[in-house]
């Protein structure tokens, strides 16, 4: 299948054919006046969470001259949402990388201090290569804990997969064994959400948009009938199916990247002073009955 032609319409068609459990509520525009569409009836198993990704705290450069305020503004916007999430996941690249180990820790401390301003206190973090590849995740673990872990929420099993602390983007045999073991006790119908940074499938290896041994993780996950993956890394929305597994990347909160293969190099989309927040955003995920996910894409300012 041609990954580049996999647009939202095609994905919706996939959903319509019954191979996925996701309904989009994206393109809702500005955050102001944007409310996710609540289901008419909610069961006690329904829940709502946010995905924030690729905040790159510490980045400085022309792709986002406002990089020192984007994250802080996002915290304020999230706090102002009519519908507060039960928890928030950060799918990696919390900080922008640096060779200076002290500066890396300083950025992580600052990031943590900023997101501590969120009203929602249940936060789930994972690393991106900018956080963890240069020191195998040493500093990251000091601030945010384990690189891979799992947790349960209202009947859904969440798994965080680390595909970044190895600089070659491998999950590794040890973690794959842990993944098999973690899922082994689950029924094949158990709803599972995977949170990770890089795409597990080969979205566009020419730009390093892949995971070296992602196929092995997908092979483990294919044994389960209700798996959804949320990831970051590519700084844009993208939706794809591998078998019955749905993969959704989120927009970033620093600068957008071009669609895969749309230009010779993966250079950031140039900053537009007339539309400073163009391409930036975060995602609301309405988990209904633990099986259907309604996605709402939020902008963080004037697009």
């Amino acid at each position, binding site marked *: 299948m041609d990954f580049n032609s996999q647009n939202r319409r095609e994905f919706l068609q996939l959903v319509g054919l019954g191979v996925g459990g996701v309904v989009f509520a994206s393109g809702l525009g500005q955050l102001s006046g944007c409310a996710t569409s609540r289901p008419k009836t909610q069961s006690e198993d329904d829940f709502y969470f946010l995905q924030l990704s690729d905040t790159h705290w510490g980045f400085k450069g022309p792709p986002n001259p406002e990089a020192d305020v984007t994250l802080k503004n996002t915290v304020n916007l999230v706090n102002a949402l009519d519908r507060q999430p039960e928890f928030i996941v950060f799918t990696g690249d919390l900080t922008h*990388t640096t*060779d200076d180990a002290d500066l890396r820790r300083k950025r992580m401390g600052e990031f943590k201090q900023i997101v501590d301003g969120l009203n929602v206190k249940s936060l789930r973090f994972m690393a991106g290569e900018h956080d963890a590849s240069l020191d195998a995740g040493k500093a990251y673990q000091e601030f945010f804990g384990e690189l891979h872990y799992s947790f349960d929420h209202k009947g859904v099993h969440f798994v965080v997969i680390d595909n970044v602390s190895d600089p*070659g983007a491998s999950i590794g045999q040890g973690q794959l064994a842990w993944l098999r073991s973690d899922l082994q006790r689950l029924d094949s119908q158990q709803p599972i959400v995977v949170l990770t940074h890089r795409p597990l499938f080969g979205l566009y290896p020419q730009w*390093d948009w892949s995971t070296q041994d992602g196929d092995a993780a997908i092979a483990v996950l294919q044994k389960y009938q209700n798996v959804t993956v949320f990831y970051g890394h590519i700084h844009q929305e993208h939706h794809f199916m591998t078998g019955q597994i749905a993969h959704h990347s989120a927009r970033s909160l620093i600068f957008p990247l071009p669609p895969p293969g749309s230009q010779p190099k993966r250079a950031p989309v140039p900053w537009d002073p007339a539309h400073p927040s163009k391409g930036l955003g975060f995602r609301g995920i309405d988990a209904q009955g633990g099986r259907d996910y309604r996605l709402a894409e939020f902008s963080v300012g004037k697009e």
Partner: protein
Amino acid sequence: MALSWARSLIVLLLISVRVLAGSEASSAAGEQVIKVTAKKFEFSPSVIAVHLNAPVVLEFTSLDRLHGFAVPDLKLEAEIKAGETTRVRFVPDKLGTFPFHCNRFCGSGHEDMNGQIVVTN
């Protein structure tokens, strides 16, 4: 004046030949040997010209830290460790321009560390 200009041209040509000899040669097996250096955040040369069906050896050295070399379209991949020579042998079997990149995260600028292999007749 004309003589001076001619001497300068000869010197330049000699330097060019030496540079080429230093970066590209033929092995005993008749392979085209191309030396490539890797450092944050560039390959040199970043455009590598090879010929269809002519065996090639890319000899990589890193000038600073761990890097990688990946050409997904040609299914080539290697790890380039500092202080070692990494050799990648292949026979180009299709014409075209094929992007390559560093696939070992090496810092802020890693995303810009890339190049192209150009295969011609």
